[in-house]
């Protein structure tokens, strides 16, 4: 499965970039995230509950940040598995400074899924992923708003 998209944040690039390195922010933004712990500078461990059509299950996995070029870009490697299969993905995230204290986030990525998730959930997975991204960005917007305005 391929993913691609963009989102406009109303905050300076450094702030947005920083937020992506903050497990609390990410953890709070991803729907179904039950746990997200920072292991070291670039590794996180997470437990995520997801529901795709008839399949709902917990996934536990790792999130690794590599090729970090603060505050311009970062590559995310995700590996998760659980009772309903596995997900493996890599995402390339770019932060473009559009000036005016706005930042355009662009992402492309590819994910492999397997197990029950693939065999009975494949049909729905694209739309589930889309709605998940939408929710994540909405939540991040809120978090940013709170943080950015506070400062």
């Amino acid at each position, binding site marked *: 499965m391929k993913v691609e998209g963009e989102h406009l944040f109303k905050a300076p690039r450094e702030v947005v970039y920083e937020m992506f390195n903050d497990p609390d922010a990410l953890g709070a933004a991803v729907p179904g995230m039950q746990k997200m712990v920072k292991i070291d500078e670039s590794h996180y461990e997470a437990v995520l509950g997801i529901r795709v*059509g*008839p399949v709902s299950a917990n996934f536990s996995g790792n999130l690794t940040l590599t090729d970090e070029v603060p505050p311009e870009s970062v590559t995310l490697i995700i590996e998760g*598995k659980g*009772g309903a*299969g*596995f997900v493996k993905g890599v995402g390339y995230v770019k932060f473009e400074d559009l000036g005016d204290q706005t930042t355009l986030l662009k992402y492309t990525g590819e994910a*492999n*899924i*397997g*197990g*029950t998730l*693939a*065999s*009975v959930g*494949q*049909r729905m997975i694209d739309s589930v992923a889309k709605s998940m991204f939408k929710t994540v960005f909405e939540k991040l917007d809120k978090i940013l708003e709170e943080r950015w305005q506070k400062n």
Partner: protein
Amino acid sequence: MTEKYFGKPIKRLEDKFMLTGNVKYVDDIEVPGQLHAAFLRSDYAHARILKIDASEALKRPGVVAVYTADDFGDFWKPGPLQVPPPTAIPGSQFNARTLVPIAKDKIRYSGEVLAVVIAESRYIAEDAFDDIIVDVDPLPAVVDLEKGWENTSVLVHDDLPSNMAALVKQEVGNYEEAKKNADVVISKRMLIEHVAAAAMENRGFIASWDERNQEMTIWAGTQSPLTIRGSVSRALGLAESQIHVITPYIGGGFGPKVMTSLADDVLLPWISKQLKRPIKWIEDRRENFLATTSERDQVHHCEIALKKDGTILGFKDVFYHNTGAYDSYGMTVPLNTQTHTISNYRIPNFYSEIRMVFTNQMVVTPVRGAGRSEGIFAMERMVDFAAKELGISPIELRKKNLLRVDELPLNTGVIGQDFVVNILDSGDYLGNYEKCLEVIDYEKFRKEIQPKARKEGKRVGIGVVAFTEGTAVGPYEGCRITVSTSGKVTMTSGYSTQGQAHQTVFAQIIADQLNVKIEDVRVITGDTNQFAWGAGTFASRGAALVGAATYLAAQKVRAKIFSTASKKLEVPEDELELCEGSVCVKGQPETTIPLGTLAALANPMRGVVEPGVEPGLEATAYYGPPHGSTGCGAMGVIVSIDEETCKPVIERMVMVDDCGTMINPLIVDGQLQGGISMGIGNTLYERLVYDENGQLVTASFMDYLMPLATDMPKKLDIVHNHAESSLKVNPLGIKGVGEAGAIPPGPAIVQALEDAFQDTKLEILESNLSPSQIYEYLKKA
């Protein structure tokens, strides 16, 4: 013989119990003390196993045992070659890599078993999956057949130099020479989709070891109970007499239930013996899609060479066939494809090459249609393309090249699944085709219906194809018929039943031969303690082989009835006849003796039985044909299609079929209609889709679309066109009919679709078409 029953549309004896929920399928059987098994299956299609740790699962309340490959010790080994490849084809290569019951070291398809959980309930057993830690190193998967054939770096079996499972070349005449004289040569690449058998009942297996009697009882929804008995006996080192395999009622077979050496039939008897408890496993639908065998999935590179006048000079087909991760079932399917490609038309020069490929998918074994559908599809399509190229109507081109009655029997020179050269025994191929044109009223469609519809802006098309159905292959089947002292008759055979009405059709033969009421005949199938010889239910062979054996055994019993009665009544045998349920003296109907009485006399409790006389009114007979038979026929369809939605509707379908003598036309029609629905489903709805990682992404009825009542033809006619056999292979003239219906719908429907768009360049090169694919094709046209 009096034919009160044979050939008549007798209603089924088994119905009233089935209709009221009074029969038992395997999941209906509860053995006291039974435990439930669930299989943890691989999420990956291809991976190395690093670690499987099930220790946590054992702590879960209700879990009794968990096994991984290592726990089976020496018992773990690759299974037998259930069907060996034929040795008679010169130069053929076959790499046997047989199924393993549970993955060890390496996973080769998604859904392969990694661990077996035994628990007090199925719910608990599945809960325990969450406790098992599986660590693997994923590998790229072999999915695409042509790429997989070439690929030598990603190997399904590391010890082989490539993914080649088999390479078989068969040639008749000399294609390349013939091609030189051709006016037209057409080559195409065509895809045949991967489909599931999807019987409504999934598979199921119960193993129950009785420690006190040292006996294993097995209930299995299988098409081959005797194969299971043999393999369990070998694997556990038991005598076959210690193993009793019972097939309860089975909710449809369609091929895959013939497969053995799977996790259930290998591991569960062993576990039952270890735990001394009955173990039950019932497959769920997702497992059925993932890990029960399936079929089709071929890529054909065909070439046809013709004269300008339409005479076919030769045909060449190099095709890739997916065997899945293992090839325990040999080459039955692609060999069927080879024999069927050349089975209809006069093809003096023929070259066919099987390239059987290992892939990271579940094993491929026959599914109703079994290789035949693919061969017929390839040939029928090529004839259509040739007709377009030559500017001859596809009808005329077929009529010109179809075999004629006087050309049969014909030795095609191609060796088939039964390891002997295929012989087209009998049939009026051209007559079937002409009959079909007549019943569907081809002329009227062309002259009136289609032009009228075009004027109204509607798209309708017609397709008429010819087909054959190789049936009734050996080796043999048998049965035993016994008359009880009550006068009731029992027939037992090693064959098993999945809805084919065996309880009725074999009873029809016996009731006529012995002149008893059909209700007084009891047919027992698929119980190894009742009858322990036979090969199993497959290849449209039940009626022909078991039917013939039944007839032969009944003849023997009949002879015994007469000799016993003659002695008792002191009347010569030729003065006796069978009255219903008894023997009477001709012209003296009052002098009768009931069959039950004769049965008692034939089994005296004191006195002397003469030397050479076997006791009882009982006889056993076997029947094995020298080669298979060939059913044949034609199919016509009229399809309309809405250009906006691209959804085809089958307005009319006519099937002309010659399956030889019919024991029961009602049952024959049921077989044909069922086959037709599968053929329609295969063509327009059903498709097993694997992604590039070998993940099956259509493992439920939400994604694997089954044909429904509204998808059937609006009007369907079945015409029986039974040509008297010119070659009497079968004593009753029976050929077989189980798969015929599934074969021709594909080529007929695509021909009709192309016809509906004859003003475009629409050219369909695959066997399965969803509306969105039709849309894509139309965009290109």
